[in-house]
């Protein structure tokens, strides 16, 4: 085990779990100005107070510290197996320190795996790139928002949704309506158009790592992102589903190749506590800079 990697990854977990990214906090603050009802304002105010307290006390913003998902960008020749081991060590230590909940259960027995380390947990995705250093992002997405994430297969007659941008829009608005307050609105949508069923969720979740103020590179997707955000906020679902002007904070869409027979629209719904942080480090684990 490399002590440098342990330190770097522990700090990444602490920041992700306990310190909401600035752009998300600003978006919550901005939405507070747009709300007029007492309940919506009280709800957003409580969220913002909680964010400040969590940061101050180094405590998890939300008790559901989610499925920790590491996205690794590594140079050729880096040892992915060793890095995954480092991630498992850091997750166990972060759990001991109370930055993560004992959040891993055996699927059938429900028995708690108290250190959050098990087969496939934490999740680690590796991509090799032409680079010298390592960048790793961590996403902590809780179960409430995971439960309202969903996948559509177009055409969908019940939504009158065809295989076009209008059809995608119908799916996204339907997903937001169905989620109501259950996914802890105001949420962020990560979306993948295309791919297969498994790839769709992976790509949709990756979109949640994007900052709120960026736009999809493809012009028609950038337009759709803005349009769905605007439309979703007309639904009136509001913070925690108790009505209001803020139902979503952002929409992030990517498109991926598909087979002719399939046209999936995959929606990863992220709660307002959009916990994503990254770090750039040397291959030995020495931190260069924190990201996000």
């Amino acid at each position, binding site marked *: 085990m490399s002590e440098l990697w342990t330190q770097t990854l522990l700090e990444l977990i602490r920041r992700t779990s306990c310190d909401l990214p600035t752009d998300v906090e600003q978006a919550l603050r901005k939405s507070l100005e747009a709300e007029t009802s007492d309940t919506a304002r009280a709800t957003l105010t409580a969220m913002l107070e909680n964010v400040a307290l969590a940061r101050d006390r180094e405590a998890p913003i939300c008790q559901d510290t989610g499925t920790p998902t590491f996205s690794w960008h590594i140079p050729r020749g880096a040892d992915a197996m060793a890095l995954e081991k480092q991630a498992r060590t850091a997750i166990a230590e972060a759990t001991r320190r109370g930055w*993560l909940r004992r959040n891993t259960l055996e699927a059938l027995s429900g028995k708690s795996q108290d250190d959050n380390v098990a087969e496939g947990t934490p999740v680690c995705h590796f991509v090799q790139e032409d680079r010298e250093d390592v960048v790793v992002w961590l996403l902590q997405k809780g179960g409430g928002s995971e439960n309202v994430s969903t996948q559509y297969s177009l055409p969908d007659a019940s939504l009158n949704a065809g295989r076009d941008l209008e059809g995608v829009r119908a799916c996204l608005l339907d997903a937001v309506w169905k989620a109501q307050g259950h996914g802890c609105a105001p949420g962020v949508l990560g979306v993948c158009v295309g791919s297969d069923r498994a790839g769709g969720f992976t790509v949709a979740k990756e979109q949640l790592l994007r900052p709120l103020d960026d736009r999809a590179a493809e012009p028609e997707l950038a337009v759709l992102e803005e349009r769905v955000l605007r439309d979703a906020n007309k639904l009136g679902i509001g913070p925690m589903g108790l009505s209001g002007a803020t139902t979503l904070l952002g929409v992030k869409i990517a498109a991926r190749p598909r087979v002719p027979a399939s046209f999936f629209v995959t929606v990863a719904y992220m709660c307002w506590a959009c916990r994503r942080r990254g770090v750039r480090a040397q291959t030995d684990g020495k931190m260069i800079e924190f990201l996000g």
Partner: protein
Amino acid sequence: MTFSLTYPFTEEQVIPLTAGTMVTLDGLVFTGRDRLHKFLHDGGKSPVNLRDGAIYHCGPVVIGDERRWHVVAAGPTTSSREEPYMAAIIERHGVRVIIGKGGMGAATREACQKFGCVYLQAVGGAAVAIAQCITAVRGVHFLQEFGATEAMWELNVKGFEAVVTMDAFGRSLHDEVADASRQELDKLLGREK
């Protein structure tokens, strides 16, 4: 206007509360989530008397041990998962207050009306702020069987803020928002009747 509720949560305190009212709770609450609800629903014996009590849908982050527990984070979990069990538990155990997030379905709404219970929504994700309201951990049940997250924690709270979203008169703000937003959705998708 905020109403103050103090344990035991008697009929007199709870029944007059109407949907939309903000409340603060003082006194004892019991956490319970998926494992506990299924257990009680299936006829399991409650280790505590739940009459005039509050069940809080929550799986807290707790550190420490039997000598001294410390709750670090304790926001609400999604209540709708307990919908298959909740009505029977309200009826059988005389639970008077449910705290969670996202609201519950028709069976729970009817049980609230019939047996005099209210559903309170706490702010999802406001886990550290809510943990500040916990003044003491009085005990824990099913720690070994269910694990720390699913266990039944006995918590003393002070000034725990929530909103009444389902009252004992059969009104549910969750249903109202779902209906109103459905109409907006139909407009946006061009399928108005």
